[in-house]
């Protein structure tokens, strides 16, 4: 891999991170929720309001606060949550692995199954199988995530259905308990993402299948398997990689708020949602900042993978 190319991509990331953090911080300070009144007792005096604002650092100049924010991001000393008083870094350390463990199986399965179905539909494009897969995808896309979650809960987790799995919780201590708690959320995630993935991957594959080099390979007598996996899939890896890489920050940081709140899973999504509704700025700053950094990292890794998949990309 071209080292200069990689260095260039990494350097490009720095102004991007500064830009993302500056804009998001600006929005948070001037348009974000104000925690003051949540922390005040009843019948507060003007002096008490000022005390709380001072304690929250709201009375400090914007640029000083932004400087502190950058320092916190670099040192990963992200302060204490305004709501619970717990260090934000401890909260992230506790919740990030949970969110990753929760979303990863569904993310992988959803993409693998989407790829497989997309390939199948593209190969049989216009035929009944294609129509069946596409119709099922549209149905999957049309059903609300919430309906899927509640439906699966009733079907698999309550006495009204099979009652095989827990409605909620995350007391994971070994593989068995992990499978016990992750199965229903994973099913929900796969069901909700499969339609979108399949349609996207089918579109990419169809475009690739119609290219000249595929027809040439067919003329040379390549088998369907060879055509699909060696020529179609390999040559359409760039959009596939882009989609997957750009989903990674969401998987890592955002988790899945709905899954976490409906299944009672203490991941980063639930913490972020609570921080938004309660105006817990230290958590919001950390999540927004880290999401920005992860996006830039994903972008950089994505560019590197491009150059691996298609060496022409890295040429100056």
């Amino acid at each position: 891999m071209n080292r200069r190319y990689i260095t260039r991509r990494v350097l490009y990331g720095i102004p991007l991170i500064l830009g993302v953090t500056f804009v998001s911080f600006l929005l948070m300070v001037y348009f974000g929720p104000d925690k003051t009144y949540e922390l005040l007792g009843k019948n507060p005096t003007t002096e008490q309001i000022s005390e709380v604002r001072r304690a929250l650092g709201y009375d400090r100049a914007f640029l000083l606060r932004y400087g502190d924010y950058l320092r916190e991001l670099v040192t990963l000393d992200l302060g204490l949550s305004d709501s619970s008083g717990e260090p934000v870094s401890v909260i992230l350390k506790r919740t990030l692995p949970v969110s990753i463990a929760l979303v990863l199986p569904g993310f992988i399965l959803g993409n693998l199954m989407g790829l497989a179905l997309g390939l199948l539909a593209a190969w049989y494009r216009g035929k009944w199988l294609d129509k069946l897969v596409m119709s099922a995808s549209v149905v999957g896309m049309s059903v609300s995530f919430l309906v899927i979650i509640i439906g699966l809960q009733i079907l698999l987790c309550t006495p009204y259905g099979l009652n095989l799995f827990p409605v909620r919780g995350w007391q994971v201590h070994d593989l068995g308990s992990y499978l016990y708690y992750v199965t229903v959320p994973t099913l929900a995630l796969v069901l909700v993402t499969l339609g979108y993935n399949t349609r996207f991957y089918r579109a990419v594959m169809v475009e690739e299948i119609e290219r000249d080099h595929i027809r040439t390979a067919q003329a040379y007598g390549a088998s369907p398997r060879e055509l699909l996996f060696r020529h179609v899939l390999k040559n359409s890896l760039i959009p596939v990689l882009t989609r997957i890489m750009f989903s990674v920050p969401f998987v890592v940081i955002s988790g899945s708020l709905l899954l976490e709140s409906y299944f009672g899973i203490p991941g980063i999504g639930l913490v972020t949602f609570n921080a938004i509704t309660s105006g817990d700025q230290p958590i919001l700053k950390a999540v927004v900042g880290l999401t920005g950094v992860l996006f830039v990292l994903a972008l950089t890794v994505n560019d590197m993978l491009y150059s691996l998949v298609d060496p022409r990309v890295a040429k100056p």
Partner: protein
Amino acid sequence: MLKKIQIALLLALLILVCCGEPPATNGGKPAKVYRHAMDGAPGSLDPAQAASLYANFIVVTLDDTLYRYKYLARPYQLQPNLAAAMPEISADGLQVTIRIREDVYFMDDPAFANGKGREVKAQDFVYSIMRHFDPETRAQGAWLWQNRIEGLDRWKEQGSDYDSEVTGLRALDDHSVQITLTKPFPQLIHTLTQGYAAIVPREAVEAYGQMLSNHPVGSGPFRLASRDSARAVLTRNPDFRQQPFDLADEGYDPASQANLGLQVLQDRSPPFVDRLEFEFITEDAARWNAFTAGEVHFIKVPVSQFDNVLSQRNPVTLSPGFDGMYHFEASPESGFVYTNFNMDDERLGIHPDPEQNIRNRALRCAMVKAFDWDKRNEIFFYDIGRVFPGAIIPSVPEFDPAGDASYIQRDLKGARELLQANGWDEETLPTLEYGFPNSVTERQIFEQFRNFMMDAGYPSAKIRPMIFATYGDYQRAYSQGKVTLINSSWTMDYPDAENLMQLYYGPNSAPGSNSANYKNPEYDRLYDISAAMAESPERTENYRKMNQMLIDDCVSINGISRTLLFLWDRNAIMKPDRSFLGGYFLRFVDLAEPANTTP
């Protein structure tokens, strides 16, 4: 091939259903684990910051307060907890002396020398109250004692130095506290039942600082084992004092409570379960599914399930499908919902021009007449809320059943006539801002309100929604007088009508709890006199006069007390309670048999 796939699928299913959490045990025996569903999550668990119901529920099981309410007595009655007896109060009502029990210890914690919990002393109580007046604490309970305890506010002005004494808050010895009040404050003992007044050791505060909120050290029956955004787990405090349970002492009423199975608690010392697990489930559907699947023992029934759960509304009766399966209680809330007019807003509040002032009052009264409480109750409170005129809720003794019912009856004709007689028409009616935090229900409530007003001839475009991202933002806006119509609710802090009447006391105007900014010298005079009085016919008369002033001045469209429905597992031996920041009943929860085999 197909057969192999079928076998593989069956095996996978078998593995999955065999997975799960092993049951918790207590020395080989199955542990008693009580699981409580809450519809919100607590923020800080530092007693000084226990402002929410959710935080208070947990704080009062981890920590101790000097007083509490009797577990089973209704109406509520005070009872010593860490105090050895009820307080001795001087004849002028200004000096309160409290003796503290001698057999109470903080739970073991590394914050103490050798990690061994030491005895709880009077100095700890003094320190815990002083913390509310230390800006470093970010405490939320100072309003309870502000300007009421001699020298406490001055102590704060002088820099909150814990080594300097507060004249009105002293430990006479290790087990006696003396409080000197600036004026009689009959509600003082009520304030000492709240999570805010829970006793914390100075060593723990100094060791953990702001992180005390996640590392509580108290003397309660349970200790915090773990906590995250979805749940909190509390385990039995093995060193909790022996304090045998006495049904009669707790106000047991065999006629209404015999079916709860509480008799088995007699003479046993709490805690009765090994673990308390709080599940924070904000989504109604998820909370309901968790309850019906048997994953939690208790639920406050979501309004969306009322149809499913009840067979009739008046009287509230459980559906046959649930009757016999669960214990059930319909409990009136200790608070109410109302829409205040911002009296500082000259468009409809107090105006310097006396004539305009009269027109503004007519406008407010017309809006009160246009409001349809029956519809509000039916659509949003399942028709089981209790509508009443003014600010005195039906569950306090000061409530007047013969109060001015016309205030809560819709009178569209009267509303239109009032508007017309005072020169209000589509052109002259002011544009008003109706505030609410962003939520579907709040939006629906606003649309219904606007519709009521439109029926009386108020143009739709002249009642505008002002939507805020969080309740805190909304509170800031109305505290700064930016909202004209303030839709809000109030939950009483203690069972004393003073806590309701202060909602319209002039000096409590915004940013205080008087969000209507109502300033009536006569109302304030009566409040000042009555607040210093204990419950009495004279005080009741004063409060009713004040209530009538609110009605005559059309200060607020009020109010309705909601009815809460509780369902709990038949194995759970308890009487749940959610009033006055509640939570004490969890000390006394027991389970008929270990019910924790499923996670």
